[in-house]
């Protein structure tokens, strides 16, 4: 009979806190958006599913062995943990908090204690550690994205790099916005939090996950969800801004045909970018290094089998585990927080400002240059590859049915990827020197 009671107490219904229930609904909503509305399904299906798994009460899939031991309800273990961590054993939350802030050596001891008491790491906790805490998964995906990227349009028209640069102002405006909310006392974001939130404006999933895993791991779930959701919403967010900031005449500008780019230029470009990173921006080296490596594999022509694997089996495997791992950060106590609303609000501001700055920079280029660019391709500078470029094309066709901007917009589009990786490197360095 005791067994039946044990089982009932271990069942989800008994244990389900309302927060976990709400998060399961959020997970189902993400799956709905991914499957029915086609919101970045490659990421949001694993993230949504991982979010549900992480919130199954009693399963503790997203907890470490030590955290599982603390919340297990075993008062003996809890007392030992509390003693080890030097806090009062009666309060589960205080012990969890103390564990999170403990030095590495104490964390090791806590893990050993938990293992000796028969607890083990949850599945999603292990996935998160291997895939994200190590930094590996976002970097491997960036390598795969590099292997899928054609820099041809960018090389044919290198000025479009400025569009990709300008659109990154969305990132920094959002940092300021987050800081402003804190200063105003509405939210409580640290400078590291603000930087991690800002990177949503980079409109680049792996970059956002990489930065927030380093600067604000507890916000990673909300940041990743915001980044991918808004990337999916680009066709809704951008067009009104594009129409508001351009005249019909500007939207009708036809651009000169892109010149042919030779194989040799395409092979040299990732190496040139790598060298410049090595010289001037070592903190962007992991992200841009792997991106350039993927692109070199693609273009060099002698490692087709590696390039093919980087674009298929490897990126797919990594995406599955990255998504589930991000889902593990959709814990109720982190996500159901006013901060998440702030992140969602700031994220859309970031996208809008980035879009606007890309457009305005295109108009500025037209003032100083004789080859006019259609300002609609400026909005593609936020990245969100290739969605933003397709939006430029679509809005362009509305004004001039013979004006195909897609390839022209691919230049700023991939420039935006480089721009946000640069911004990520800068912010990581600056935040570390501020907080370290």
């Amino acid at each position, binding site marked *: 009979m005791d067994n039946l009671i044990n089982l009932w107490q271990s069942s989800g219904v008994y244990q389900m806190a309302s927060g976990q229930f709400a998060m399961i609904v959020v997970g189902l909503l993400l799956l709905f958006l991914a499957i029915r509305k086609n919101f970045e399904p490659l990421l949001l299906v694993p993230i949504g599913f991982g979010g549900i798994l992480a919130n199954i009460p009693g399963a503790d899939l997203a907890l470490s062995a030590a955290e599982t031991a603390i919340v297990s309800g075993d008062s003996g273990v809890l007392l030992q943990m509390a003693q080890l961590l030097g806090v009062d054993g009666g309060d589960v939350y205080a012990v969890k908090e103390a564990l999170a802030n403990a030095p590495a050596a104490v964390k090791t001891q806590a893990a050993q204690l938990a293992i000796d008491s028969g607890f083990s790491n949850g599945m999603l906790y292990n996935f998160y550690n291997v895939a994200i805490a190590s930094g590996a998964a976002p970097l491997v995906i960036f390598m795969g*994205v590099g292997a899928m990227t054609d820099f041809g349009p960018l090389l044919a028209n*290198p*000025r479009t790099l400025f569009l990709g640069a300008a659109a990154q102002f969305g990132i920094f405006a959002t940092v*300021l916005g987050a800081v402003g909310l804190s200063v105003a006392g509405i939210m409580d974001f640290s400078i590291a939090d603000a930087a991690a939130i800002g990177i949503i404006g980079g409109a680049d999933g792996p970059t956002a996950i990489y930065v927030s895993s380093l600067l604000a791991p507890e916000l990673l779930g909300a940041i990743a969800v915001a980044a991918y959701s808004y990337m999916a919403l680009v066709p809704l967010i951008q067009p009104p801004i594009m129409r508001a900031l351009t005249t019909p005449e500007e939207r009708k500008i036809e651009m000169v045909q892109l010149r042919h780019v030779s194989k040799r*230029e395409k092979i040299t470009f990732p190496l040139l970018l790598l060298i410049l990173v090595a010289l001037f921006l070592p903190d962007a080296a992991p992200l841009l290094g792997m991106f350039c490596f993927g692109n070199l594999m693609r273009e060099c022509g002698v490692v087709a089998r590696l390039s093919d694997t980087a674009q298929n089996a490897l990126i797919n495997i990594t995406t599955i585990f990255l998504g589930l791992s991000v889902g593990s950060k959709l814990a109720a106590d982190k996500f159901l927080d006013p901060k998440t609303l702030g992140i969602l609000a700031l994220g859309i501001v970031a996208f809008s400002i980035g879009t606007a700055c890309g457009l305005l920079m295109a108009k500025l280029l037209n003032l100083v240059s004789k080859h006019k660019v259609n300002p609609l391709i400026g909005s593609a500078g936020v990245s969100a590859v290739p969605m933003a470029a397709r939006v430029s094309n679509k809005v362009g066709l509305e004004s001039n049915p013979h004006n195909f901007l897609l390839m022209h917009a691919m230049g700023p589009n991939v420039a935006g990827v480089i721009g946000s990786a640069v911004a990520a490197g800068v912010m990581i360095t600056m935040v570390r020197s*501020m907080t370290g």
Partner: protein
Amino acid sequence: MQETLLQQGLDITVFGMGIVFTFLLVLVIGTSIMSRIIVRNFPEAEPVAPVSGNQRDDSPRLRAIAKAAIQKHRERNK
């Protein structure tokens, strides 16, 4: 502390945006020089048909190219 936070935010914005622009400016210059050197010194035997453009007279072909490009890039954005 709050004032410091604001200062930190401004620092990040000013220096960050500055470095993004400076770096991409250097990259524009580097890329242009690199392309010029390669185009001059290592001309390709036969430049294949240009990748894109927007002449009116062959929009179906271009539409096909655009479609293929979309197709190709559709799965890229993760």
